[in-house]
C-alpha cells in the first residue's frame, strides 16, 4: 500500500522532470521568456476586439 501510494506520484514527478529537460533542450524556455519579458497587450486586455 505504502509503495502504491508513493510510486505513481514519483513516476509522474520523474516524467515531469524529463519533460522539463526535453523542453529546455528544445528551446521552449526561450519562447516562454520572450513572451514574458514584453508587456503582453492582449493578455492584459489592452486594444481592440478582433
Amino acid at each position: 500500500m505504502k509503495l502504491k501510494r508513493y510510486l505513481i506520484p514519483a513516476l509522474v514527478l520523474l516524467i515531469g522532470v524529463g519533460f522539463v529537460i526535453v523542453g529546455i533542450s528544445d528551446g521552449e524556455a526561450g519562447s516562454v521568456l520572450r513572451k514574458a519579458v514584453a508587456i503582453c497587450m492582449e493578455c492584459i486586455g489592452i486594444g481592440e476586439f478582433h
Partner: protein
Amino acid sequence: MKDFILSLFGLEEAALSDPVVVAGVILSFVLIAACIAVFITLLVKKRYQITRWGNKTWQRTKLITQTTWFVLTNSFMVGWLKGTIYQGKLKYICVPGMNCYSCPGAWGSCPIGALQAVLDDSDPSKSWFDPKTSTFVQYPKYWIAFYVIGFLMIVGAVCGRFICGLLCPFGWIQDLLYKIPVKKLKLPRDEKRINAMKHPGRVRFFLGVDKYLRYAKYAFLLIMVIFLPLIVRANPWFCKYVCPSGMLIGGIPLMSMNESLASAAGSLTLLKCCILVSIVVLSMFLYRPFCRYICPLGAIYSFFNPISLYRYGIDDSKCNRCKGCHACANACPMGVDPVKTPNSLECIRCGTCSATCPQKAIRPGFKVKTAEGVALRTKKNK
C-alpha cells in the same frame, strides 16, 4: 554584488542612476526578506499542521499564507513604481498559480500564459505565404509544450490543487471578496438538510446545474488554451478573451501608470472589464466562481488531486459520519463531501474540512498512517 543585483533585476547599469529604481530594488529586498520571515515563523509555530488548530486559526493562517505568497511573487517594486514589468531571467520559471506575467511586480511567468506562448510560437522556416487567401500561414514550432507541461506535472505530483487553495493570487482575491458580508449562495449537500428546506426540488436543480457547469473549465482548457493557440494561432486566446486575472493585476495597474497604454484601450478592454466585474460581483456571493467554472490551471491540477504526494486521508476509526455528522461536508466551500471523496477533483485543499472536523479525522499530508498506526483512506468511500 552590483552585477548580481543588475542581473537578478534584469536592469542596465545606467538604470541605477535613477533614485526611483534604487528605491524599488531596496524595497524588493525588504519585501522578500519580510515574506521569508513570515513563512519561517508560520512553520516554526507549526501553523501548517491543520489538525492542531481550530478553523478560526487555520483560516487566519491560510489568509496570511495567501497574502505573503502574493507579495513574494509580485515584489518587483521597480515595476510597481515605474509602471513597467520585470525583464530578468527569473521569467524563465513559471509560478505555480494564475499570476499574469504582465503584472508590474511579477517575477515569474504564468503557466497558462506560458503554455499558450509555446503552442502559439511559429517556425519561420516552415511557414509559407498562401496566395489563395493572401495570408501568411504560420507553422507551429512546438506541437507539445514539454517545458510547461513538465513543470505542471512536477507541481501537480507533489501537491495537486493545494496551489489553488493557498498559492494562487486570483484565488486569494476571490477569497477576500467572499469575506464581504452579503447573503451567500451556498447550497446544502446532505439529503437531510435539503429535504428540510422550503423548496428541495429547486435546491437539487441548482446542485445539478452547478455540477455540470464545473465541467466548463475543462472545455476552456481544451479549446481556449490548447486547441485555438495551436491550430488557429495568432493569439493567446484564453488570456486575450477570458482571463480576468491579467486585467486585474496587469492591465489596470499598467494603464493607471502609463498614459500610452491607457490611450490604447479599446473594445477588448471593455470586454475584459465586463468579465472582471462579473467575476468580482459573483465572488461576493458564490465561493470562487472562477476556480469552479473557468480556471484551466485548476482543471490541470485537478487531474493530479487523486494521485499527488500531498493528499487528504480519512481516519475511519475516528469519523462520526455514521452518527449523522456532516460537519466537513457542510463546511466545504467548494461543495465537496470529503468523507465520500477525500481527494475529489473539485477539492482545492483549502483545509477548511480538516480544521472543522470535531474528531480531527481528516488528515492532510504526505503520510499513509496516523501516529497511532491507523491506515488513512485516500480513496472514494464505497
